[in-house]
Every structure is written in structure tokens, then in C-alpha cells.
């Protein structure tokens, strides 16, 4: 029952994200736009390129969607509203979202097109940059919570939210989350100006619809993860827990979608260099600081 409810919520969330994304792109707030776009995609031809790796080509969009949904499975909206409260939840989000990489590699290799293939391999480089910056800040978060349970992580922020307790970790995680969701300015994989759409370029019709849906689910999952790790999850005054979760998730999503519009795309070489030469030392420093804080203010 909870599962069905949460999947429905995820779908509604994905829809809202689509509306927000349409707003950031077109500058107009149109509630119906995603529905129209979705129907239009379903009505159009779904082309298979001439020499695809058929299995990869077909599986990739679904793998993207599934991995995003699996990631969402351990995110609590309220103390009880969670699909499965795994004992290793904080790690599991990360494990599920690694398959985004696999999906993009498959989508890149599958259609046998130059743009798509380069887009796919680019994401592998991107993963090498951001992966550590997902895991290390989460480590600091679970150090404070003394548990990998996502619900426990939220409860641990009852006094002070992690965004104040470990701001450094928040910044790193937020940037890495945007890179994981390949949102601009990290959209090296699907870049329009450099690869004419990259991995998306060869997908049409229903397959493209699934791919886009997977991406929306991915964005919302990551926003939700940011909320439970750093923004105190469902906690907040006056309003009921579910309302707080919703508000926070939508706010984070909007910031994620908007940020990239005001800067050019990052260079892949810069991304790698900064993540490893600056990001990882900072993440280690963050772990150290949080360790000290946890000992000083138990």
C-alpha cells in the first residue's frame, strides 16, 4: 500500500519537476505542457537505428527509470512513509544510482551513433569525478546519525540540520548530485551544443519518453536525498511532515534546475581536476570536522 502510494507520489513529483523544467526552459508556467509533450512522444514513431546493439538500446531507458525508482525506495517522506527502511539505506541510494551510469553507457553504445557513444563515455568520466563526492559527504552524515538508516539520519537532525552542522558536506553533495543527474552545467552527456543531444539524440517516441521520465525521477530522487541528508527531511514547524518534505524537495529541485541556466557547461577536464584536487580533500576535511564535532557535542 505504502509502496503504491509512494510510487504515485513519485509520479506526481516527476510531473511537477517536468513543469518546473518547462518553466525554466520556456519561461512560461504551463501546467499542461508535460502532458502534451508526453502524449506527443507516445504518438510519434519510435525509430530503431540501422545497426543498434538491440539489447542495450531497448534496456537502457528502463534501467535508468528503475535505478531512479530503486533509489527513491529508501527515501522517507514522513517517519512511516517509506517503501523500505533498509538498514543500509544511505549506502543503498548510492548503489542504486550507480546504475544510472550503466544505463547511460548502454544508451550511448546501443544506437551505434557517434554522438551518443561519446556522450555515454563522457558520463563515465563524470562518474569518476563525482562518485567520491557522493560517498564521502554521506559518510559524514551517517557518522552523525550513527546509523545507515535513512529515517535515523533524519531523526539525528532534530536539533540542527546538517546543512548548518556540516555546510561543506552539503555543498559538495549538492554539486555531486547535480553531476549525477547530468543537469546543466554538468550535462556533458546530453549536451545539445556539443553532441546534439548526446545519448538522447537517437531515441525517439516511447523510448525517449521512458528515458525522460527516468531522468525526471532521478532528479526528484536526488533532491529528496539532499533533503533527508541535509535539510532535516520531514522536520519543520507548523505544517505536517509530508508537506515539509514536499516543499523542501520541490525547492531543491527548482534550484537544481535553475542553477545551470546561468553558467556555461563545465569542461570535463576541469570537472575531473576540481573534484579530485579540491573536492576530495575538502570531503576528507569535512569527515574530520564532523568527527571532531560528533565527539565534542555528542
Amino acid at each position, binding site marked *: 500500500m505504502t509502496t503504491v502510494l509512494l510510487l504515485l507520489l513519485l509520479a506526481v513529483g516527476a510531473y511537477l519537476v517536468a513543469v518546473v523544467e518547462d518553466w525554466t526552459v520556456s519561461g512560461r508556467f504551463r501546467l499542461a505542457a508535460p502532458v502534451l509533450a508526453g*502524449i*506527443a512522444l507516445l*504518438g510519434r514513431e519510435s525509430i530503431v537505428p540501422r*545497426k543498434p546493439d538491440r539489447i542495450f538500446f531497448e534496456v537502457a531507458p528502463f534501467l535508468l527509470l528503475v535505478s531512479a525508482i530503486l533509489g527513491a525506495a529508501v527515501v522517507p517522506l514522513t517517519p512511516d512513509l517509506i517503501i523500505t527502511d533498509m538498514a543500509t539505506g544511505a549506502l543503498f541510494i548510492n548503489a542504486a544510482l550507480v546504475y544510472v551510469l550503466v544505463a547511460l553507457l548502454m544508451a550511448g553504445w546501443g544506437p551505434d551513433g557517434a554522438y551518443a557513444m561519446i556522450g555515454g563515455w563522457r558520463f563515465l568520466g563524470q562518474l569518476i569525478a563525482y562518485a567520491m563526492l557522493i560517498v564521502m559527504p554521506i559518510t559524514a552524515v551517517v557518522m552523525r546519525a550513527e546509523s545507515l538508516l535513512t529515517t535515523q539520519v533524519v531523526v539525528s537532525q532534530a536539533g540542527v540540520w546538517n546543512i548548518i552542522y556540516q555546510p561543506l558536506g552539503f555543498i559538495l553533495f549538492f554539486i555531486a548530485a547535480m553531476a549525477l543527474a547530468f543537469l546543466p552545467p554538468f550535462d556533458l552527456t546530453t549536451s*545539445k551544443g556539443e553532441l*546534439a543531444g548526446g545519448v538522447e539524440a537517437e531515441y525517439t517516441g516511447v523510448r*525517449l519518453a521512458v528515458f525522460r521520465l527516468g531522468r525526471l525521477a532521478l532528479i526528484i530522487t536526488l533532491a529528496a536525498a539532499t533533503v533527508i541528508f541535509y535539510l532535516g527531511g520531514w522536520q519543520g514547524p507548523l505544517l505536517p511532515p509530508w508537506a515539509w518534505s514536499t516543499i523542501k524537495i520541490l525547492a531543491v529541485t527548482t534550484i537544481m534546475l535553475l542553477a545551470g*541556466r546561468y553558467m556555461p*557547461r563545465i569542461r570535463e577536464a576541469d570537472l575531473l581536476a576540481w573534484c579530485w584536487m579540491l573536492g576530495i580533500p575538502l570531503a576528507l576535511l569535512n569527515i574530520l570536522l564532523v568527527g571532531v564535532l560528533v565527539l565534542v557535542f555528542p
Partner: protein
Amino acid sequence: MIAGARQGRPSALRRLVAAAMARDLGTFIIPGPDIARTHGLDIEATGLHRVTSPRHASVLLVIGAIPPSLRESAAVVYAQMARPRVLFVLGTDKLFPLPAADVMADLSQQELIKGVRQLRSAFAEGAFYPEVSDFDAPVLQVRIEYTCPMHPEIVRDEPGSCPICGMNLVLREAQAKAGHLHIDHQEMGASMDMETASTHAHGSHHSIDHGAPVEYTCPMHPEVVQDEPGSCPKCGMDLEPRNAPAESNHEHHHMTHDEPVEYTCPMHPEVVQDEPGSCPKCGMDLVPRDIPAESSHEHHHMAHDEPVEYTCPMHPEVVQHEPGSCPKCGMDLEPRETQNKQSHKHSGMDHNGMDSDMDHSSMDHGDMAFMSMIDVTKDLPRSGDGLPMEWIEAPFGPFFPGLPSGLLLTLTLDGDTVAGSNARSLIENGELLQSSSMDTGSFVERLTSFDPLAPVAYRYLACRVLENVAGMDVSANTANARIGALERERIASHLGWLALFAQQTGFDWLMRRTTSLQLKFQHADLEQIVALKPAILTLTKRLQRTPLLKSRMAGIGLLARDATLRGPVARATGIGDDARSTDKVYTTLGFKTVSRKTGDALARLHVRLDEIIHSLALIEAAGAIELPVPTIIGEVSGTGEAVVETPRGVARLRLTLEMGKVTTAQLDTPSTHHLALINPLIEQQELGDALLAVGSLDLSPWEVRQ
């Protein structure tokens, strides 16, 4: 009904879907948004949203008359679009090989809006139709041929195995020999790999391919293959047609094929002859290969006209410039190109490689025929860092979103590094004179339409040169007003470049801002321009503060000072080269040359931004804006020359007039020089950096002269 309707009986549900589709029209613009803006069209304002991949487009919007070679590319784009698709044409009726337009309108914003309305209703009604015909055009004809993945020189008409390495030959497309005009097949890929382009052209659902046997296979069980349609014995799904044999083919060595063929020995590459036969050394059958195919692969690391030297096959240290025999073993010396040895260090030319060659050739015993990777890859090109990834030849353009439209950049990519490139303009804008003698009025009009990205500058140039020939002068007021128009165009052009840059780097805010500013500037009068000044200043300030911008551009596309550079590109390297600085009218208006030192893309951005601001000041000083009108010069004879600083750099025009008619015209344009810079500029660069470097040159393919 629209010509690109999707097959299907229009049911109620389908009508609903079509209505939804009509309100969400992804548009692929031909030639590109830069041309749309110069015509003053605001595409997004009409509700069409622009997409960058033809696969995602449902509307193909053709703006204005486009040259035949671009029309062919446009036909490929049209074929790549998913059905239902419509062709929406503004202001031209020369479309072949594109099909007839579904909706036509004139070139203006009102007409565009009206056209979009028509388009929506046509789409809502005609998106589905029971019988649809395939779109076909000569450029889409493909022939299937088979080639070895390792030895691209092996090309056969039938499947089989490679005579060199024994691998199975794999299917690929080659263009039909007949029926194509100027361009090679692979260069036609508008923005998609050509492999995929023509599949769709023949209708992916009912794919019938020309000249290829069709077989039917199960989408889930690729091992199930039969000659006739039916259902899969394993899962019962309907079998789908495909060209035999096409399971998961990844083939990336594109080469041209209608080249002369020569025959060579797989083991002794030095044996080359024009006819089939057997090798005089080992008796193996000679195998055919394309002559230029090989050289095109080798040209990355060696020039073709290398001096030939002669060397002994057994004693590589013996090298001499003339044929003869080896002083050590008496064998005949064999010719080779001088650089060959260096670039193929591990290619079996030296002793170690030679030994392993022999090992393997004598290793025929036993059950396993091992294929040496060193041997089979020795003729393939090596990448700069010694770690080759897949080499792909990918076309970027002529409608690539991150490049000026009309520019075709064919990149040989090693992973995501550019290993080689070939840039050319697909717009054949060669002849300036339509007839042997042309009257001055139509000559001015011809130059006005010469480059749609800078019509005023070329119009001004034509007027100036005519006045020079005639020895006339215009009044100070007129001269100032002309400069006002030219500088206004410079601002608009630089804003257009900023929009391209923003599109390329995914900088949405900048794209939106500069697009609207360019549209406003294009026909603005003096008051409007003064009113727009704060907006420009805010924009430049904003760009100074933009995160990532500096790191994105600094050090990219580095150019040293060079006499071939023109315009802002030259001024970014510190050269104070500007035709305006010697122009009296400009100096009285207070012109100062803007320049930067570093010569990278960032410097070019800054030069252009500074020029925009300086142009604003010049327009204000000029105090009027007026398009250049040709002076009536009468029946003058003589020659004359004029230079004008167009937004892209100095353009120089030399004319001969006889009795008031233009008989010869020589035009030197900045983009012609810049086009030649591309190859060295982007070699060994990461793809994104390479595209940015090309973009930062601000090429106009329209003014490129072969």
C-alpha cells in the same frame, strides 16, 4: 493530410494524440537560428520550440532560399525525423530534393505566426493517415557493402571473411554511385551519423532497403533468422525485417569508396600493384585496397608528398635515396615514404616487428589460427597519446546546433579527442557576378545578399568600391549615417555570435538574452539604440561575473599572431589590425582599436564585448543611421578597391568597371582565411574544446570563397 504523416487510421484516440502533438511542436531550423535572427524571426515566440536533434523534431522549418548542397543535407535531416513530420517553408519554393512544403509562408514574423497556426491545424488533422508513402531522394540511396572491421580497405559486395585476418566482414552502407551530386555520402549526415540516417529514410517500420537482402529476425532472440515474415519459435513475437546480417554491428571506420583500387599483399605491404595477382615474395593472393583510403588514414601523421627513400626489407638501417640493392644481403631495396618509419615504429618495419611477423606467419600449425593484434593494427593510425580509442569519423554540421549553420566540420575522433578534421562551407557562394557584365545597381544587391549574416557591411563595401572607381565622395552626413548602420550591424552580429556561443555551451540565460537583444538591435533607430545601452552594459557586467565562464574559455583555441588573422580574432592576439583605424570618418568619430593579448577564446569574447560597447559610442557620435545607397556613377570605366571592416574582419573588394558595368570582381573575406585555421587549431583537443575553438572564430560559411 501532411506528407510526412504516420501510418494509421485516424481514430478518435489518434485524433486526440494528434491534437496534443500539434501543441508541442519541436522544430529543427534550417539553415539555423542565426539566419532566422537575421531575418528578424523570433521562432520561440510563436510557440514552436527549437530542438537540436532531427530525431526529436516534428517540424522542419526552412528559412529563405538555401543553396542546393544544403538542401540535400536538409533532405537527410527530413528523412531522420520521426513521423509525423511536417515541412514548413518560409519564403522560398526551391526545395528539391526536399518534398513539397506542407505549409508555406513569407519571410516575416506575422507570416510566421500565421503559418504556425496553419501548421497546427494541418498537424492536428493530418498527423495520421492510412496510407503513407516513403520519402525518397537520390541522396538517400544506399548500397550495402561488406567490410572488415580491422581492414577498411577490404570492401566486398557479399558477406564473407577478410582475406587478411579472417574476421567476418560486416555490413555497412555505401552510397549509390549514381545519382549524387557533389558531395560524398558520409558528409551528408546533417547532425547524425549517416548509418542511422538512411534507415529511417526508408521507413523503419517497413524497412525495405535498396539492394540488400532482407531477412526477418526476432527482436528478443537474434539467433532466430529466417527469410520470410512470421513469428518467433521461441517467444512468439512477430519477426522484424532487417538487412542481413545486422546483429549489433558497431562499425566506425568510415571511408570513401569510389576510389581507384590497388592490390597489395597482406604480409608484404610494400608489394603494391594495379591488378590482382599473387605476391612475388610469398605467393599469397593480393588483396584490393582503396588508394586514398589509406592515405586519408595516414595523413594524420604524415604529409602526402614526403620524399621517397629506399630501404632493405631485412636491414632497415640501410636507407638510401635511390633504388638499388642492399649492400648486406643483396635484396632489392624497397621504396617507402620518409616519415613512414617514424610513425610506424611498432609496425613490423624494424627487427622486432619483423620477427614477430615471421613467427605468426609460420604459426599456421595447430588448431588455433592466432591473429596478431600488432600485425593487424599496424597500418591503422596512432593517436597522440599512444592510447587509441575507437576512431570515428563524425560529421558536425551543416546544421549542427553548436556551429554556424552551413559549416560542415568532419572530425576524426579518437575517443573524444580530435585526431583530424576537415572543415568546409557547404554554401557555394563562389560567383559574385551573375553574368559577364553586371550593372552596378544589381551588383550592390548581389553583395547585399552575399552574406545574410552581414548584409550591410557588404552593401557598404560595394558602394564604397563603386565610389572609389568613380572617384566620388559622399557627404559627411551620409558617411556618418552609413557608419551608424555598419556599427549597428556589428553589434547585432557580435550578439549573434554570443548566442551561438551560449547555445554551444548550454548557457541558456545568455542565449535568451542575446537573441532578444539581437532582434531588437537589428532594425533599431538611434533612439532605440541609446535606450538599449543599459541592457548591453548589464549584459557585459553579468558576463564578467559568470562562474565557469573563464575556465571554460581561457586557453582554448589559442592562436599566435599571424598575418592571416582578421578582425576580432586578430585583435584578440594583440594585432591592432583594423580597417577602421585608417578611415578618416571613423577617426573623426573617435574610433580607437580594441585589442587583447592572449589570443584565446576568452580574449575573443572580451574583444567582441568591448567592440559592442565601442560601437554604441560610435553610433551615438555618428548621430544617424542610414543604409548605404549606391551613388549613381554613370558610365565609368576603371578599376578600384575598397576595404571595409565587417563584423568578422577586413573584407577587400577589387572591381573592374567597363562603361558602368561590373566586369570583374575579386573579393577577399575574413572567414576564408579563418576556415584554414581550423585544422591545426583543434588537433588533439577534447571535442567540447574543439567546438568552442571553432565557434570562437565566428565563421560565416556564406562568405567563404573557395
